[in-house]
């Protein structure tokens, strides 16, 4: 099947060949395995190469482990002082640059507007930075008396061998009323941000989760895992959950606090948004505390409704199920009206999504609601299970880069483990088609003959846009302007171009309007000046 577009027709095989042909042979071979022409296989999902090393010199979208750890996972927690141990840049670049909104109220603790660094100097690199780190932790404690101080290692810290964990432990014991813990998230570890998510989540699980057994008020207690409150997404989800009477104990980690993490083990269900960044935490919460988990998606109005119904079904309480239906019924008319307004202008348009480790999949829902087709997609730091589904997890190869990311062994907590459902209840749910710990990945939702590309780079992106000419391209800030120079609108799906929220019902309406604005903006018709359209003077000017 050919990929249709307005100006040209290329078969997916030709597109793939075009993308590869300029590469040195070795690079072409490697990239070929990461570029998948989707086939609709009856029993299995086609295999894609993912979570492998970035090729030096090839301009990648990816960032580093530190970015995934400090920037993504720990960034949104407002009442922990995040102290970066290293030269100044790493802390500077992660200072307010992700749009994690937080609501600390008038007087609540909020350190998210601050940037803390040990500002390592050459003498620290030569003689070791532990002394300076200790002093910096002390100064942060004296100034703010926070509940927690998190220490993040940057590249040189690992190389010179500063023992940040020992320093953290020592300071924690010294203070007594401040939890100090550290993350070995040096930028060179792993192959992308994904390793940093893992390192962060492991430490959160070890040092924070399970500390507060106090029973939180409310019914139908859930954790929302992998939702980072970009542009207020988490606020919209919380609004809907509240309307439904569902209590969100802990969001990992949008608009989060120390205490939310500490109380997460008191919830009765974990709902996983971003599969990539956090599915292993869901597993650990189940193993250690007996909390089952399900995959949800609050991106897209239909997906939101479906996720709410799934939560309702899990708790199985008619009052809750009715309330959820009432909320959906109350919210949907505004959504339907917004779709009816924009659909005539968005229907039939095409989009490409290259973002994140789950967003590229989630946002296909919203484009579907707009009548837009996702013609090519892929993740920046996804793993094979994010593409092909969780069935492949047992077969994933553990390579050298994955091996140096700590896997923590978790077992049932002798005191706090409590199964939330009996084996019979679980079986009854599953027999009724309810799926626990299930994620089928992105590929099954892509049409046959579309291109699924992992770790798409600058060169390939340009080729894709040039050949397939989508109506919209979605990626991050680094990709934004090179795509737009080609006259194709580009939507940032990391930062939302400073808009949002796009989650939930209200978010869906925001997104419809935004996409309508982007794909129908007049500016894309201004590329050529009149004298460029008609350069030849065909006659002398006739004065009126």
């Amino acid at each position, binding site marked *: 099947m050919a990929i249709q577009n307005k100006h040209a027709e290329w078969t997916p095989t030709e597109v793939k060949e075009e993308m590869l042909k300029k590469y040195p042979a070795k690079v072409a071979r490697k990239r070929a395995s990461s570029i998948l022409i989707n086939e609709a296989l009856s029993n299995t999902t086609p295999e894609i190469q993912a979570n492998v090393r970035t090729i030096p010199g090839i301009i990648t979208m990816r960032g580093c482990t530190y970015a995934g750890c400090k920037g993504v996972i720990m960034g949104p927690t407002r009442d922990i002082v995040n102290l970066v141990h290293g030269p100044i840049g790493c802390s500077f670049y992660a200072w307010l640059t992700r749009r994690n909104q937080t609501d600390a109220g008038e007087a609540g603790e909020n350190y998210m*507007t601050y940037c803390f660094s040990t500002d390592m100097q050459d003498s620290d690199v030569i003689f070791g930075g532990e002394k300076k780190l200790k002093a910096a932790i002390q100064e942060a404690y004296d100034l703010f008396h926070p509940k927690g101080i998190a220490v993040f290692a940057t590249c040189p810290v690992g190389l010179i061998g500063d023992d940040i964990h020992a320093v953290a432990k020592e300071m924690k014991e010294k203070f007594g009323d401040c939890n100090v813990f550290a993350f070995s998230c040096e930028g060179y570890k792993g192959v992308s941000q994904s390793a940093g998510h893992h390192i962060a989540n492991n430490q959160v699980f070890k040092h924070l989760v399970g500390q507060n057994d106090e029973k939180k008020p409310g019914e139908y207690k859930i954790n929302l895992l992998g939702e980072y409150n970009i542009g207020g997404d988490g606020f919209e989800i919380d609004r809907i959950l509240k309307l439904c009477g569902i209590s969100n104990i802990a969001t990992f980690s949008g608009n989060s606090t120390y205490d939310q993490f500490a109380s997460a083990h008191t919830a009765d269900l974990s709902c996983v948004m971003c599969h990539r960044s956090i599915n292993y935490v869901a597993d650990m919460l189940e193993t250690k505390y007996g909390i089952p988990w399900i995959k949800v998606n609050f991106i897209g109005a239909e997906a939101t409704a479906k996720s709410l119904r799934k939560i309702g079904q899990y708790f199985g309480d008619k009052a809750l199920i009715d309330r959820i239906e009432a909320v959906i019924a109350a919210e949907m008319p505004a959504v339907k009206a917004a779709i009816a307004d924009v659909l005539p202008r968005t229907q039939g348009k095409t989009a490409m999504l290259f973002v994140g480790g789950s967003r590229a999949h989630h946002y296909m829902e919203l484009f579907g609601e707009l009548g837009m087709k996702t013609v090519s997609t892929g993740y920046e730091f996804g793993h094979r299970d994010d593409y092909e589904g969780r069935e492949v997890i047992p077969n994933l190869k553990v390579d050298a880069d994955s091996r140096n990311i700590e896997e923590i062994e978790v077992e049932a907590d002798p005191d706090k483990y409590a199964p939330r459902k009996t084996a019979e209840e679980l079986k009854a749910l599953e027999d009724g088609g309810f799926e626990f710990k299930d994620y089928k990945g992105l590929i099954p939702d892509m049409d046959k003959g579309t291109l699924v590309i992992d770790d798409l780079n600058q060169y390939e992106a340009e080729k894709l846009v040039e050949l397939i000419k989508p109506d919209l391209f979605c990626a991050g800030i680094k990709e934004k302007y090179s795509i737009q120079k080609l006259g194709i609108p580009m939507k940032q799906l990391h930062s939302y171009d400073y808009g949002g929220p796009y989650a939930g019902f209200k978010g869906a309406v925001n997104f419809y309007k935004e996409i309508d604005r982007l794909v129908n903006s007049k500016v894309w018709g201004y590329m050529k000046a009149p004298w460029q359209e008609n350069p030849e003077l065909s006659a002398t000017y006739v004065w009126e």
Partner: protein
Amino acid sequence: MLLRHTPKEINERSALVINPAKTCQPIGAMYAALGVHGCLPHSHGSQGCCAYHRSALTKHYKEPISAATSSFTEGASVFGGQANLLQAIENIFTVYEPEVIAVHTTCLSETIGDDIKQIRDKAEKQGLVPKGKHIIYCNTPSYIGSHVTGFSNMVRGMTELAENTGKKNGKVNVIPGWVEPSDMEEIKRIAALMAVPITLFPDTSGVLNGPLSGEYHMFPEGGVTIKELKEAGDAIGTLALGEWCSADAARTLDTRCKVPCKVLDMPFGLKATDRFVDTLRTIAGTSVPEEITRERGQLVDMISDSHQYYYQKKVALYGDPDQLIAMTEFLVSIDMWPTHLVTGTPGKKFEKRIQELTAHLPYEVNVKAGGDMFLLHQWIKNEPVDLLIGNTYGKYIARDEDVPFLRWGFPILDRMGHQYFPTVGYKGGLRLLEKILGLILDRKDRDDSEIQFELTL
């Protein structure tokens, strides 16, 4: 309050930096390299550095920023990054076909001690560098200096291409320092008006302020060319604008190619622009055209017309040394009172210069090199100001303390215009004044009672 935990009481900190007024070297090297035509900057380290620098520069310029990385893994960090860099060089020249790759290091590759010159030689020996193409490089350890140091180091790296043929070519090298593409364009305009042939390097105009035309060129038309950089060795002299950003390159060129140099302040404001124009005139042996004198007169006219609103207004500033020195002189020249100054870039010379520029004022200025914005905020809490000048991060202080705020410096993440409208030269001075005046009078219009509210100001 956005910065609700910042106390008024100031306690000395020895180890903890809070809200820095600087970032690390490599981003400066990347920005400088973008000012070379056909150049792909390359970050030799983890890929996160490159991603962060590209993001920050993209957000500031709203333009594509292409740069590559050696994408170190743990193995490379242990065994050295030579294999990664060699592979990167081959891939870059094959896929992106730049004229030149500008390699800068990171704290990672510096800590393990990679020798870039040796790796470059090896790449050349292995035939990975196509004929007529170049690799320039500089060392930018992130744990020394600041982004300003990195900029300076890469500009010095460019001078390695300069050749001294023994025959002067009549041109003047101008090293503009870390200013906007619009500023570089303005410097070229001034030189052209004076009919002085200059080689401006780096030159990001035409690179980072490009048009939208439906075409993407990874290497836009702007930037100083390799040919011009080679010929810089035959120039009659070099004007280095800014001691921190530009002096090193100028002095290196002097040592290597016997091109004499003069270090001036960056031409922000009346007096620094006067010195720039006058020096350029003198070394080129030309006269200043009426048009420039007229532009100067317009700036003086506006100072006189609006002086009452500047007089003794207190200003807090943060940013980079060269910019702050010139801005302080400008503020003093219009009778504003620079009160608190912080740069994150180390160097006691900075404090000394600021003290000299403000010595005649009836108060002692707070100034710190190697300081941070947390300290600046505390100073403001203790001694409030009428205007805050600096990069976008100041908006949190401005809102909390309700201070009018001029965005000036790097990075500006929440406003546009700096790409297109210069603040150097007399025209740039007019724009600075227009902005400062607008901020002060908007505040007056907001705060005046209905009785005092005025039509004409």
